[in-house]
């Protein structure tokens, strides 16, 4: 049988080819960073640049624990199974002390589960799934970014202030979309019990049939619309909706719609008057936000995305946690993260002990078009700490460790 023979030979060849790749100079502290650099390049690239910017600053200031901080970037092809394999490789072969990364929630969840099983510390930087720190939360996993629930609750708060009674929702038909709608409904109903959801639209992710969706929403004649679509789906929805007059005289709430990654491609067709979460990088006048944007633009000569900010804050959080832990073993790192306060461009954030969620907030504002591009005006930064459920609720949601 030739099968097995070849197979061994192939393995052997890789062994040889990769054995020659260890040993370093100043003994850096290595962090494993896993992301979908190809599959979601538009989001992962600004994120990576944010990380590199922060790394330069951290290492320029002498590193952490007097050692340089180093990130090892790996592409998981957007496959959770692959991400798990890479995570193992990073931890066992590359000598990384912890893991971070991912945009897609499902991969974040896969790594989180691995982290708990193997005792690796994982900082989920960008994935939004609520379950990451609640239903599926575990001792080893922390999350930086404001979750779906938090951002939806911010929009629900805005929506409750109007006299709109009937709502339509449109969200991609998968876990994130459903979470986002459920969170919005829950938060809004709590604030304003007499609202009615007259239709829920669930286009398939990245396969939206925008004309039909717009017709279906129009048919329900809602006072307001809650949008969770993003990317190409958002573009098509906005264009069809605008053409067919769907948004005329209606309040629209858009989750993540104001983030540069999503709104920039729309150019002058960006929706106007929507209440959205996003990142108004163009509008900071001073302070730490402005400093970050300036530094980023000086370094890369392009605008930062929300991913850039998250990447930057990821490094800040990790550096702070290691410094606070004083060591790089898992237990010390967990102690370092729990209750950690970090100074970031958006202000001080706090890694909660009860659910390992950071209190990074979000910018909420109104969209408009200026100079051929969609921007947010009248925005405010809402602190994430104000939009998290009570401790008792969290305790109920989160399994005991």
């Amino acid at each position, binding site marked *: *049988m030739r099968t097995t023979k070849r197979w061994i030979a192939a393995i052997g*060849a890789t062994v040889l080819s990769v054995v020659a790749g260890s040993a370093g100079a100043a003994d850096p502290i290595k962090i494993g960073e896993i992301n979908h650099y190809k599959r979601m390049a538009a989001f992962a690239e600004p994120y990576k640049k944010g990380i590199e910017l922060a790394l330069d600053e951290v290492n320029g200031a002498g590193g952490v624990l007097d050692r340089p901080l180093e990130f090892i970037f790996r592409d998981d092809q957007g496959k959770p*199974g692959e991400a798990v*394999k890479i995570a193992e490789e990073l931890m066992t072969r590359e000598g990384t002390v912890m893991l971070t990364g991912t945009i897609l929630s499902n991969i974040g969840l896969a790594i989180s589960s691995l982290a708990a099983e193997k005792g690796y510390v994982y900082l989920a930087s960008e994935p939004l799934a609520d379950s990451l720190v609640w239903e599926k939360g575990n001792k080893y996993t922390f999350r930086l970014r404001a979750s779906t629930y938090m951002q939806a609750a911010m929009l629900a708060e805005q929506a409750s202030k109007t006299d709109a009674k009937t709502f339509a929702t449109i969200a991609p038909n998968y876990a994130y979309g459903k979470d986002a709608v459920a969170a919005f409904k829950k938060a809004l109903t709590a604030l304003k019990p007499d609202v009615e959801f007259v239709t829920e639209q669930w286009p398939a992710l*990245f396969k939206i049939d925008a004309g*039909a969706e717009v017709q279906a929403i129009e048919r329900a004649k809602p006072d307001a619309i809650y949008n969770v679509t993003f990317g190409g789906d958002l*573009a*098509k929805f906005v264009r069809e909706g605008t053409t067919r007059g769907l948004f005329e005289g209606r309040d629209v709430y858009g989750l993540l719609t104001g983030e540069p990654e999503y709104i920039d*491609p729309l150019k002058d067709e960006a929706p106007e008057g929507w209440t959205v979460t996003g990142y108004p990088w163009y509008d900071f006048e001073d302070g730490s936000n402005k400093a970050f944007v300036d530094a980023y633009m000086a370094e890369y000569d392009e605008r930062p995305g929300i991913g850039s900010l998250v990447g930057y804050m990821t490094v800040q959080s990790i550096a702070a946690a290691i410094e606070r832990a004083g060591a790089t073993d898992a237990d010390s790192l967990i102690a370092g993260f729990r209750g950690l306060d970090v100074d970031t461009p958006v202000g001080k954030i706090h890694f909660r002990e009860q659910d390992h969620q950071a209190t990074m907030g979000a910018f909420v504002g109104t969209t408009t078009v200026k100079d051929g591009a969609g921007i947010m005006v009248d925005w405010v930064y809402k602190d994430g700490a104000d939009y998290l459920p009570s401790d008792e609720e969290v305790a109920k949601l989160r399994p005991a460790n």
Partner: protein
Amino acid sequence: MGLFIAQLLTGLANAAALFLVASGLSLIFGVTRIVNFAHGSFYMLGAFIGYSLMQVLPGAIGFWSSILLAGLAVGAIGVIVELLVLRPVYRAPELFQLVATFGVILVIQDLALMIWGAEDVLGPRAPGLKGIVRIMGEPVPQFDLALIAITPFVLFGLWYLISRTRVGILVRAATQDREMVGALGVNQSWLFTGVFFLGAALAGLGGAIQLPKGGADLLMDFNILASIFVVVVIGGMGSLPGAYIAAVLISVLNVFGVAYIPQSTLVLMFVVMAVVLTVRPYGLLGREEVAGEHGQVGEPEKPIKPAGNLARGLVALLLVLLACLPFVAEPFFTILATDVIVFCLFAASLHFLLGLGGMVSFGHAAYFGGGAYVAALLVNYASAPMELAFLMAPIGAGLLAVIIGWLCLRLSGVYFAMLTLALAQLVWSLVFQWDEFTGGDDGLVDIWPAEYLSDTTAYFYFTMVVGIGGILLLRHMAHTPFGYALRASRDSARQAEATGIHTKRIQWVAFTIAGVFAGLAGALFVFSKGSVFPVELEIAKSFDGLIVVFLGGVKTLSGGVVGAASLTVLQDFITRFEYWRLALGLVIIAVVIVAPRGIVGSIRAIAEQRFSRGEVER
């Protein structure tokens, strides 16, 4: 009433791009018999090129000529692909070319990323057609009406070309017997190239013409793939009017689906396809496939014999060496080896179906993922112990295969393949969207093995025993009466039926066995990763399986395993580079061209030439 008409018009407008792209795929398949996986990439290129052209060409004239030029440009790219990649492998076994087209997908993905960058682009709106028309009070975009008007002209033009012109007659003749067309003095290579040009151009046109309704992004190649396959199959492979009817049917039903059962998106299309194929197995306007009528069945497999003592000894020795791996290599290699074995078992189960059974399943991931999900669901909901969940996974996958096999086996050839794809997609979309039960895209996590297997090395040995045991069992089966009956049913169903062999039952059982072993691989997978997600049921996963089986050599016993091991190891290595998709795509294309019989098949051919003896594979 007004709304009803408006919805109908929306459906008709949506059908336009779908029809253009699908008709190109249908045309290419009809003449060249190539299942062009890269067709979605042509569509994507059409959108990007159209977008770039519209940036420089002003006004209405510029807009429309950009669409036409995008079509021509993509047609030219199609010609390049045909000349460089496909022409060298036309003589390879049937369906082998799809591996090459898969390589093309990867290459185009990275090239598009290099040229147009990562950010989505929004297509410009059609000059002069930005507004709406009120039809019975309902707003209908002008551009929708333009699309509705244009499509029938394209359809008529294509129909005229195919049924009334000499070129069309030649194309249809070549669809049936291209060698004969060549022997009658027609340069069939150029006919193929021409058809590829036309097919790719239609895809490019489809990509460009939808720009005013959307834009261009790097995911649109895979996103349209399932839909156009569905359209082509529902319409009947090779039938242009069929593709039009199917595109309209799918699009219109989708519009009403959105309006009345909003949760149905994704699933609806596959349900329609399953229903149509159950009633009309060859699509609405397709005609029955007659096996071997295209004069390119490829040379038959070599007779097989069980391994001799020497070979068995070698295998045993290698297994011992493999068992030493945890002692000599870094822990990561144990993990990689576990992955390799799991994928090899998956590939071996597909090869059992595809190689021995001659049944090309485009949806084999359904059983791999199905098995993984059965185990994960049991652990998640019933807190089943790992042993029980592990046992139930192959059984569950087998049951799924029993059902899908029963539905699909009424068809054969490419229609069989397409129906397996559709039903696998149906399973995928159910898992993806029924998140209350399956966790949807967020998957099921924390599915870890029992305490005594939680160590990486322990799990590696477990995988070795179960995985390699499974592979050897499948291999053993090839040499038993059942394996022979399966090959007999593949080689000549006529003779088999006339000598008392219930071929469909044999194939059904084989389909189930393949499902069981894929499910077993899925079970090994889920406990090694601790989680399972719908991606394990996706088209891409099924394609991975097909690629390795063809790459390894479909007409050799060990092809599946060798292909799987090579690709897994290669991928692990190559994905460390930035433009790994480009590199991997080029490697795949190179292997396809250099080794058209697959890795094992080509090595064997070389060995045979050197030693020039032995009709028997050991």
